[in-house]
């Protein structure tokens, strides 16, 4: 069953309206002398909205958005490059892969948040400690996907390319690389998401700027309005990035059946 787009949009908006209405009534209308959602703990939707507007109007938010974006992008790029290089290396050299296998598994099993204090100690409170945290998250996703992508190249496609007369370099360019990239791009959303998680968590644990910092500061002074405003902006920020990633993905994976059917 498929809803009409207008009807769907209406229902989606309705959900927001109902939730906001409950929130608003709970915070402003006393029931039997008690507030269902005391303002101190839950703030009020209109207050949150005016705080968001204020952050944008005063311009203070831009610096934080910029810092978080920079950290996310850097973490994504560095993690991806590392993942691609090491992924290729391991996939083409099974001996290396076998030797490092237990260590890769060990590091990947470690919850990365515990590394944050170490990175802060090593790299200071600036953006690089957050980038490093993001890199450790992004790297493994990209690494595993590239490794798999190179390993899972169809043997028939490979044999066909060899029979065509491709040398190792040409095989890399025309077969291994596109295959690995298709796997990597299929995890693009996850990878970018993790880069952002690394940045925000890093900021939250210790920094002087960024969305994570903003939320942490507000929490520190029991400014619930500020916390919600920060969360709201963060969510919107993630949606914008996700939209952008989807565009890139559709562009790059045009040859894939799923990507094509989504476009139609």
């Amino acid at each position, binding site marked *: 069953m498929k809803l009409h787009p207008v009807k769907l949009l209406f229902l989606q908006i309705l959900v927001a309206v109902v939730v906001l209405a409950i929130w608003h009534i709970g915070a402003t209308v006393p029931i039997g002398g008690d507030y269902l959602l005391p303002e101190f703990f839950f703030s009020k939707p209109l207050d949150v909205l005016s705080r968001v507007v204020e952050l944008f109007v005063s311009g203070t938010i831009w610096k934080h958005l910029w810092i978080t974006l920079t950290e996310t992008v850097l973490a994504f790029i560095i993690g991806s490059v590392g993942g691609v290089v090491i992924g290729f290396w391991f996939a083409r050299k099974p001996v290396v892969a076998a030797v490092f296998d237990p260590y890769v598994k060990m590091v990947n099993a470690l919850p990365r948040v515990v590394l944050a204090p170490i990175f802060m100690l090593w790299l200071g409170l600036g953006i690089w400690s957050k980038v490093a945290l993001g890199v450790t998250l992004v790297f493994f996703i990209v690494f595993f996907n590239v490794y798999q992508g190179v390993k899972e190249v169809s043997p*028939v496609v490979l044999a066909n390319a*060899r029979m065509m007369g491709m040398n190792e370099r040409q095989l890399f360019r025309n077969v291994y690389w596109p*295959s690995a990239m298709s796997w990597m791009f299929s995890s693009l959303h996850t990878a970018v998401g993790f880069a952002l998680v690394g940045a925000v968590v890093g900021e939250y644990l210790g920094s002087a700027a960024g969305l994570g910092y903003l939320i942490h500061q507000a929490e520190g002074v029991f400014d619930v309005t500020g916390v919600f405003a920060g969360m709201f902006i963060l969510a919107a920020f993630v949606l914008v990035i996700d939209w952008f990633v989807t565009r890139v993905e559709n562009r790059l994976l045009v*040859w894939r059946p799923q990507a*094509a059917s989504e476009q139609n």
Partner: protein
Amino acid sequence: MAGQLIDAAGKPTPAETAQAGRPISDGPLAVALDDIAISFAVKGRPVFNAVAPTSLHVNEGEFVAIVGPTGCGKSTLLNATAGLLAPAGGTVSIFGEPLVGLNARAGYLFQQDALMPWKTALDNVAIALEIGGMRRGEAVAQAQDWLKRVGLARFTERYPHELSGGQRKRVALAQMLIRQPKILLMDEPFGPLDAQTRQIMGTLLLRLWAQDRKAVLFVTHDLEEAIALSDRVVIMSAGPEARIIGDYPIDLARPRDAAEIRLDPRFHALHRMIWNQLKAEVAKTYGDDMDGVEATS
């Protein structure tokens, strides 16, 4: 869909008529497999002898079909000729020279999809020339021409997943032929297609082949297809230790239409003759179990 395919396949061209007849073999054999044995070593098991020492010669310009039950080692023989697989014993000679590494003079048409899914039909065909160092512009022009020849002029910008199975095979055919290989190796190339499309593809293959006759080794489990296409049908026994158990010249006139030739009385006579001899051999190899024999009439 069907109409378009029939259009594309068309009727045999004059070129095929002009060159009809049995090829002359003055020069060295295009393919000479002498006492080839192929074994697979699987860990923890005795060595599996897929192909017992067997010999097969293919003249220049000759279309040879290898028929046998599924899993009898036909493909293995083909892979040895391609250089994708090293035989355990015997020699592979290509135009009189022993084969070292991959067979650079052979084109290979695989049963499964072998196109690069991330390239369009045009790029898939053009790359075959580009890797040889040809300029992109020229390679693309030639690729366009070849796609036209296989009846895909309007599908050049499609990705493999946007093409039907038959269309993908046509792209693969163009990809193989554009390099002008001296030897064509085909491993049940039309196996995954429906019966109708198989016959159309067979006719298309014959038409393209007739323009510039190459040596062809065509593996199939379909005796009818083998007779319809080839100059010679070679029968292999079931594995393990598969070997060639029959070799029949096909004296049907060319040009042929892979579908219409099946109505020819001579076709039936050949089919009956080969199958009668084959039946006994296959029954011997299989014992009482005849279920696996696919080359039934």
